């Protein structure tokens, strides 16, 4: 016994932070893969999961797998369903990961990706584009651009407003500035809509969000922003844990709080703006996914940020499957589905969780 004690005393105890853990890492990866497969497999043209896997493998060199699909099925799978699934995954991952980052940076569990006016700005931009742009150019390509520009502009205004209101209580001032900007953009947007009731239908279907017309072009436009922003946010996962100690303590640990917050907000905003531009305003993902991970896995941002990305992607792909199948051949707006199924799901998680007191 004594010898064991001596050995124990001499070895330095090593403390480790709970990360994601192999179990949750594998489980969430499997969830995303399954969601992607379901997203590709479900649709009016019956293409089995096995055929999808074979078709995927056939496009890889050196494997010599023969695709069982005919030309029509191939086109349906890779030109209709695949871009839609890919875009849903990108948007879902982005909304969830920026939701988690906003919650960390503002130390506010109810923060969502639209907190600083992204939604209001994008909505106004899209409305103006639909009312004036599409009519004059005849092309709907201006809508995502206008939405992106509106979203970024709104957050810039929010930031400038928040900073001018007071440096000491920056987060509180920022959130209030976000509310101000959102209210103002909503007012302008409503005014413009009321003056042009003929395009109300188009505006609303954009606002409610969806992937009905998604193409590889949309994926190519949004992916660089989403991939870049997500990478920045994932790299900041440990710093977000430090920020959870509050501004003062984070600063006393050597963190440049204002600069870190700005970098995270910029990344989350650009990514969210890109996601909103190609998908409309999809609510709930940015709150429900990070909180589900907090309840099931860990409250540490080291787990919440990367897992939000993966689970958010899978979640929105599955939600999109529901949106296009429940009333098939008609489609439900995906925002309605995320809220309708998301809210009760969240309630169940909340109830059954052991970690909540």
């Amino acid at each position: 016994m004594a010898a064991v004690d001596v050995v124990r005393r001499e070895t330095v105890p090593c403390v480790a932070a709970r990360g994601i853990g192999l179990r949750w890492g594998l489980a969430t990866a499997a969830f995303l893969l399954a969601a992607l497969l379901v997203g590709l497999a479900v649709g009016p043209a019956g293409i089995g999961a096995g055929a999808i896997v074979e078709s995927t493998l056939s496009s890889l060199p050196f494997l010599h797998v023969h695709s069982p699909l005919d030309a029509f099925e191939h086109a349906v799978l890779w030109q209709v369903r695949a871009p839609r699934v890919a875009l849903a995954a990108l948007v879902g991952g982005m909304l969830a990961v920026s939701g988690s980052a906003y919650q960390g940076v503002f130390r506010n569990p109810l923060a969502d990706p639209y907190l600083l006016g992204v939604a209001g700005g994008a909505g106004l931009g899209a409305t103006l584009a639909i009312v004036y742009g599409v009519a004059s150019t005849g092309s709907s390509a201006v809508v995502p651009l206008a939405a992106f520009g509106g979203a970024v502009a709104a957050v810039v205004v929010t930031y400038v407003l928040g900073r001018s209101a007071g440096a000491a209580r920056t987060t509180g001032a920022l959130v209030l500035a976000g509310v101000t900007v959102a209210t103002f953009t909503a007012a302008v947007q409503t005014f413009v809509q009321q003056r042009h009731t003929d395009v109300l239908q188009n505006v609303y279907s954009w606002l409610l969000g969806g992937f009905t017309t998604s193409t590889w072009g949309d994926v190519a436009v949004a992916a660089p922003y989403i991939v870049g922003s997500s990478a920045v946010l994932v790299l900041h996962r440990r710093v977000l844990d430090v920020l959870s100690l509050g501004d003062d303590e984070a600063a006393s640990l050597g963190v440049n709080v204002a600069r870190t917050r700005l970098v995270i907000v910029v990344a989350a905003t650009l990514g969210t703006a890109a996601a909103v531009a190609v998908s409309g305003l999809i609510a709930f993902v940015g709150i429900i996914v990070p909180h589900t991970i907090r309840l099931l896995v860990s409250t540490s941002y080291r787990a919440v940020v990367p897992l939000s990305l993966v689970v958010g992607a899978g979640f929105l792909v599955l939600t999109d499957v529901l949106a296009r199948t429940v009333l098939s051949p008609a489609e439900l707006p995906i925002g309605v589905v995320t809220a309708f199924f998301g809210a009760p799901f969240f309630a169940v998680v909340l109830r059954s969780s052991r970690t909540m007191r």
Partner: protein
Amino acid sequence: MIELHGVCVRFGATAAVRELSFAAGAGEWVALIGPNGAGKTSALRALAGLVSFEGAIALGGRDARRLGRREVARLVAFVPQKPETPHELTVGEYVLLGRTPYISPLGGERRSDREAAGRALRRLDLESFAERRLGSLSGGELQRTVLARALAQEAPVLLLDEPTTSLDLGRQQLVLELVDSLRGDGLTVVSTMHDLTLAGQFADRLLLLDQGAVAAEGSAAEVLSQGNLAAHYGANVRVLEEDGAVFVVPVRR
């Protein structure tokens, strides 16, 4: 280890700290005492680099203004009066956050960081608590955990803002004894203290601040006089001395 020369901290037009000068060497414990609003906490925050100040502060012989945030954090560990302790974090994870000044902003902990956190836990007898969540700890355990986080910073200066608030009498003594024992490793301690008796018994020197300026400075016997406490605290006290220790006892008027 630390030197302050004519340090002023201003919030707009009001000066919270005025012309504060003092020094503390390795292993020394200086307690800042004074009535509410005397500028004790502002002085600590200036030392920790959390507020801008006029005058000069030297940390380990180097001008604090010329040091980066991370360099200051490697020299000075700061424990605020009400530290933020997220309930769901484990003791081990929380103490590891103390290693932040050594970890690249976008990186993760290395083995040396995990070992430093382990040493801090052992030093404060918290090894068996590593997996416990902060939300499940008692007040005394929590205060020890916060100290362990500061210790993991491996800074030669420890700043404590009211380290004994919200602890019972026995825990107050326990925590202060713990801090005292850390001085054996050469740690310089600057703390604000409300309890004058404890301040006098644990600190080497007391600095009595009033309205931001030093009103009295020296040993407990020198500073904790009936006259000083009446003049600066507006308190009616009796000061007893026994075996070199000073006891401040409030007396009802």
